[in-house]
């Protein structure tokens, strides 16, 4: 299936939940509503025409204009096609729905996005920090992050 067909079938099913799309990029992407990612993901995985059963990657991004986002790279082992989904949120309201129930691999990736960007993943079964210590303050991969002077009495900068 080409990206255009995928976009059309998504539009037909979800309508206004599909915010925007860029199909002429080398890896075409579709922007979806951050509070409806789960049902869209279920549809993409279970629809026999798409069958995106393999999530390659899930990355949090700080776009440095007050916008945060999560990028889903999907792949189908059955049809061997790819698509990129994106969901954006603001720094003030960083909420994106979890897709862990669709692809189990998203669990740790989403925890990492929370850890690094502070994106709150709604409906995530176990939303804790994953890489940094549980008592760490701040979300280091945000572009405006300031490195703390001390952590637990240990000096952090060189």
């Amino acid at each position, binding site marked *: 299936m080409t990206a255009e067909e995928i976009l059309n079938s998504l539009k037909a099913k979800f309508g206004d939940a599909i915010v925007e799309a860029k199909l002429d990029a080398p890896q075409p992407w579709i922007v979806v509503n951050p509070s409806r990612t789960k049902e869209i993901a279920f549809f993409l995985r279970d629809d026999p025409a798409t069958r995106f059963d393999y999530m*390659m990657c899930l*990355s949090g*991004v700080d776009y440095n204009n007050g916008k945060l986002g999560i990028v889903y790279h999907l792949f189908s082992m059955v049809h061997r096609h790819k698509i990129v989904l994106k969901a954006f949120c603001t720094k003030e309201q960083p909420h994106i729905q979890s897709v862990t129930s669709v692809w189990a691999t998203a669990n740790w990736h989403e925890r990492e996005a929370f850890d690094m960007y502070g994106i709150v993943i709604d409906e995530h079964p176990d939303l804790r920090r994953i890489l940094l210590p549980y008592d760490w303050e701040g979300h280091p991969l945000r572009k405006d992050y300031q490195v703390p002077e001390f952590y637990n009495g240990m000096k952090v900068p060189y």
Partner: protein
Amino acid sequence: MIETKSLPTQYASQPGPVQTSSGKTLRTDEMIINMGPQHPSTHGVLRLEIVVEGEIIIDVIPHIGYLHRCFEKHAEHMTNYQQVIPYCDRLDYCAAINDEHSYVLAVERMLKIELPERVEYIRVVMAELQRIASHLIAVGTFGIDAGAFTPFLYAFHDRELILDLFEMTCGARLLYNYFWIGGLSHDIPPQFVDKAKQFCTYFRPRIKEFNDLLTYNEIFVKRTANVGVLPKDVALNYACSGPMLRGSGINWDLRRDDPYSVYHKLQWEPQIGKGEMGTVGDVWDRHIVRMREMEVSLSIIEQALAALPEGNVQAAIPKRIRPDAGEVYARTETPRGELGFYVISDGSGTPFRVKARAPAFVNLSVLPAISRGCMIADLVLIAGSVDIVLGQVDR
């Protein structure tokens, strides 16, 4: 809908409350044990919080991040794209070349440049040599997990020979910085081809010796067969890759199915687990897939060396790399599986965002699902068969 709860029960005595015939529930005691961060068998600084009932595991909670070295932050703060390569080396320190390969591939796809043939062939040779070296560490330390120390030393002895080849080429033993964007840091030395061929002829019988020592050892087979079974659907749902996925019987190899470099010009077949000693997808299958992949790599190396063309080892690229604004996700098959780099460029000379999709990170996340109901001794083996490198898990 894919059923992820179809995991097989591994022992007759399932953990949980036991009822007598009169309906009374017996009390059983559960215990929490910490394995790691310093433990002989966690392959680095992984910490596993284990809930056990006697020796049987009820739950495993991995705690990672003890080696979080801020790779993604560094990638954003370097002065140019090339400076990220040494940090990629340090992600998966057992297979540094494969990490570089993935990153330079992502940037090259972004720049849309064509590489000289010679570069691609040398890259294939190096990547496959590195794959053998990495698998040797994996199976060697796996031997230690199973209680056999000697195979580890046999494996490391052979690995040294590969490191000699690398050292001859770029001067480093472990972290190379050899693949550069648009080519290689420099050409291979003249005697390299002969030495590499010698290594191939030397190493083939050694694989057999290793198999006799460990893989087909009766005790080892008893320990690993039917343990830690990872069914196909679970493997896909957790997006496992590499020997993990192939061990579960899925015929999937990025070198063949999402071709990069010159793998499509060479003759070879991916190895998959067939459940020869037990169930498809058990620990032994993952081990044998690694052993057989080493043989496949040898044949790839021999073919690539035979077809090695003459030519330049650097494509004509601008001194200052400034890809157009955009994004790319490129993936390669590393010894641990699919290593992808998601690179976003904003048109400046430094990457805007680099996300490493680390195979060890993803493969490790399946560990709790496949080790419930096992024994502590099995957990050690399952963790060993996942073949994690903490540098990649924690980045």
